[in-house]
């Protein structure tokens, strides 16, 4: 259970307040809101990168030296990977074994691309690698921060079909942050508006 009640963060003079969010495993919740309102900050906070400030919050417990059960998918797959490492090294780092190989096929990725570096793949391919990297066995919740905003419609549809299938199979809770009302309508169980 991922829960945030009256969350806020202070940026100098500015106070950003967050809407209340409740996300159970197996549920898909959408968050929409205008630009610059703090959606990525919310994602960073739920992923534990920005310190959490809230009246009431609950996050899954994170074991030391293990991956965070709440995984954050960022908007640009290009920046999610260390440009000097091959994708194999990046995926091995998160999975610590090569059990991700069957997943590659499900997502239409070629295993031979693993020897490449991020600048040798397209945005859509990188975003799918990014997703696979986050789908380590310990993952319980996914925070998708505008993950398909800069992909074309067909790639978007494919991406979400794969993601939803995996979420269903593994009983993941997914928080979808997006501008796109049609996308949120189509995939979310309920939508939180800022």
């Amino acid at each position, binding site marked *: 259970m991922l829960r945030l009640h009256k969350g806020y963060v202070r940026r100098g003079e500015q106070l950003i307040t967050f809407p209340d969010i409740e996300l159970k495993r197996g549920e898909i919740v959408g968050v929409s809101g205008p630009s610059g309102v703090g959606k990525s900050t919310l994602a960073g906070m739920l*992923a*534990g*990168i920005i310190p959490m400030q809230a009246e009431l919050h609950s996050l899954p417990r994170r*074991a*030391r*030296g*293990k*991956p*965070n059960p709440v*995984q*954050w998918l*960022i908007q*640009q797959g290009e*920046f*999610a*990977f*260390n*440009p*000097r*490492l*091959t994708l194999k*090294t990046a995926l091995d*780092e*998160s999975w610590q074994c090569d059990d991700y190989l069957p997943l590659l096929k499900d997502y239409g990725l070629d295993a031979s*691309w693993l*020897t*490449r*570096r991020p*600048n*040798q*793949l*397209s*945005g859509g*391919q990188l975003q799918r690698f990014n997703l696979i*990297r986050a789908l*380590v066995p310990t993952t319980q919740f996914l925070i998708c921060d505008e993950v398909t905003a800069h992909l074309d419609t067909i790639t978007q549809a494919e991406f979400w079909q794969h993601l939803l299938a995996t979420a269903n199979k593994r009983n993941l809770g997914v928080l979808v942050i997006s501008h796109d009302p049609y996308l949120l309508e189509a995939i979310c169980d309920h939508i939180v508006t800022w």
Partner: protein
Amino acid sequence: MRDLLRQPSFMAALALLCGLVGLALLWPWQGAELDLLNKYQAPSLHHLFGTDWLGRDLFSRSQQALAQSLYVGGLAVLLSSVLSLMMAMLAMLHRAAAWMVDLLVDLFMSLPHLLLLILLSLAFGGAEFGLVVAVALSHWPKLTRLLRFEMKQVQSAPYYQLAKQFGTSPWQRLRRHMLPHILPQWWIGGLLLFPHALTHMAALTFLGFGLNPDSPSMGALLAQASQYALTGHWWFALCPGLLLLSCLLLLSYVAQRLLLGLRQGPQTHLEGVVKC
């Protein structure tokens, strides 16, 4: 890397540099014998660089000076750049450590450079040891500041923050995600320190706080030659100067090519590129 070793220009430069340094290190004659019958001799086959005002063979003295300068300068630069990397990494550990490092950098950078060099050289007893320590302790702040900003940039990069999400240890993060990005900076920064350090050593020697003027060093040699520049003895300054210059240029060329080779890495060639 392997491609680099096949380039004839790189290999030629490397061979020439190794040849020059090897010759300087292995040259058997000290060039200390006075030969007052043969003073002020212009360069000839017998004396390649000519002789000086005491009839000493300038070629031997240049070789000795080059070896001495490379050794002392190299040691000082090595110490200085290792120190700057250590300080930059220390600043990453904790906020208080970062504050301390920044304060030290500010302090060292606010003092006049030459004054600091003189004070440090005197404090550590002068001569070779004092000179090395003075150069090492006064040249780290600039590189440290540069590395600090580079590290901050990497720390705020999404991939570095995401690496934390996967439970990697700090040491692993440092080794895999931080160091490969800052080492080229460090390497080039250290290299750029080298000519800087050599000039400062020469300056200290010139002012009398550095090496013993009797022992041949590039600084002493050039400083003494400057008195003869207008009397027609052009080879006093030109020959050793050209030797030093060619060594430094070769060194920087080799280092830059190496850097390029390291940056490219094994598989960024065109074969595997996907057209997006």
